[in-house]
């Protein structure tokens, strides 16, 4: 997947995506809008109501695999409905199309945002790669 092209297609530059939506990025000048807004009347100065987002620490991605042949790929569900059945179909797909790949299904414990130290330890120990189904 060419992420740069993807982001461009979505109307977002990779750099812009690395930030929160900003006034500069989203602002539409009133005179560019088809609205009844007028620039008449006295000028006022008002305060920005936004809070302060935390700094973003960029996380380098993990080194990729040369090939999936002979590798163990964990199929991890975050617990949303349907994820288990969907991952089962992925397992079937690998058996049919890439039988040298071993798949292991796991359900992450807790809510979707909760940590699961036991699973993370297992992944670190045994997984060559992970396919994670997130959401519905």
């Amino acid at each position, binding site marked *: 997947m060419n992420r740069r092209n993807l982001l461009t297609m979505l109307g977002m530059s990779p750099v812009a995506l690395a930030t929160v939506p900003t006034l500069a990025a989203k602002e539409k000048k009133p005179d560019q809008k088809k609205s009844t807004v007028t620039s008449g009347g006295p*000028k006022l100065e008002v305060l920005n*109501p936004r*809070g302060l987002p935390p700094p973003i620490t960029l*996380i380098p991605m993990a080194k990729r695999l040369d090939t999936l042949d002979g590798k163990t790929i964990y199929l991890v569900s975050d617990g949303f409905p349907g994820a288990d059945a969907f991952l089962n179909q992925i397992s079937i797909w690998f058996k049919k199309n890439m039988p040298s790949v071993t798949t292991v299904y796991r359900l992450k414990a807790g809510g979707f945002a909760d940590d699961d130290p036991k699973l993370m330890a297992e992944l670190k120990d045994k997984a*060559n790669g992970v396919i994670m189904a997130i959401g*519905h």
Partner: protein
Amino acid sequence: MQIEKMGIPTAPMVTIAFKDLALTNAAKRGMPHERICFTPHPVWGKTDEQMYAYLEGNDPVTGKPLMKEVIGALTNPLTPDDSKSGTINPPTGAPTFVGSADELQQQFLDNGMSDFMPVILPTREKVDAMLKGTSHKPDEVVGKMTPARGAFPEWSYTVEQVAVNAVMAGATPDYFPLLLAIGSTGISALFSSTNSLVSAAVINGPIRDKLQMNYGIGAMGPFNQANAVIGRAWTLMSKNLDGGGVAGETYMGSQGNVINYNNLIIPENEKDSPWTPFHVQRGFKPEENIISFFFGFNITQGQGARGLGMKPIPHYHEAMSANLAPFASMFGALFIVDPLVAKGLGDLGFKTKENIADWLQKNTLVSVKDVKTMLFSGLPRGPEAANLTDDMMIPKWPRADSYQFVVCGGQTNPYHQLANMSYRLSVSIDKWV
């Protein structure tokens, strides 16, 4: 992302309905080039054959074969951008904006900084006046808020930033300590879930009268300035102080909920209630000003249920139990009862809120078979789970404190409303005076 951090290549798979959320959130959490693969939506409710067809089809974002994308996500070599480290300070715009009143109103609309209704423009003069409503310094950090804890980064905010939102909502300085108390909890009223969830705040103590809040006729409707404005301010705070409420990015409620406009603000009618006020139940003193938070699915009316036609005293407890049938046990039950209902329950022998909660817990039952088919309801865990059979009847909630009661209303009729909501916490308003 956590798995990538451990050095394991990962291909997250997300349905197309969550594209914007997934891409922007990956960036905000530090991995703007995370190799997310997209499937058609939804997965839930599809047959095995339909899901397999998704895998044989294309990624709806790239238009390329989905499984090829998944394999590529795990095997395509990293680009220099993928390996970047460092820190970015995300901007949120200039500290102030200048324009005519109309231009500024439009700017607040265009940038998603309002509830899409006109706001009071937060001029320096108005914000300074608001700040006089508290002894806390303008630059003091009040708290941290996120549209969904664990899923989105937490933003922080100061007393002054809360004041800006308070002005926008139409608050007076007298309301400000209460709004700071809300801010101190970090609870967003616009929790990002596909479930279109709602929030409620119960207010107890003398501040209800000081702010001339309405806990009588029409208390939960648009008939009182304080009730309305406090709720609206909470929504504005939930949009502006944490970057929340951006549909498709930081708000995913499939249908949304009208309650999100200004939330359920429920000042308890302590004067006409025969029961202990909600905050005193939680260990606070009657003279303390306390705000208590609830969170869950929605609110519904109690009229029409079995037992309300009984004479001379309606069997409110039976009606309440019947009302609970569609509720999911993931959240609890919050009953908002008119004082007439509380008094009627008292006449039936329920002298305390705990009495009626205990009766409901013991008598509101559901079959194991039904629980197995209900969404967001679960069977008991532990040793007893092994002995459950489909025909057994079990309590809808295992604990009586899943049932909470607040007295509110003007006694024009003995009605109650009930919400599929759970109690979260109570905090002091006085601390923010």
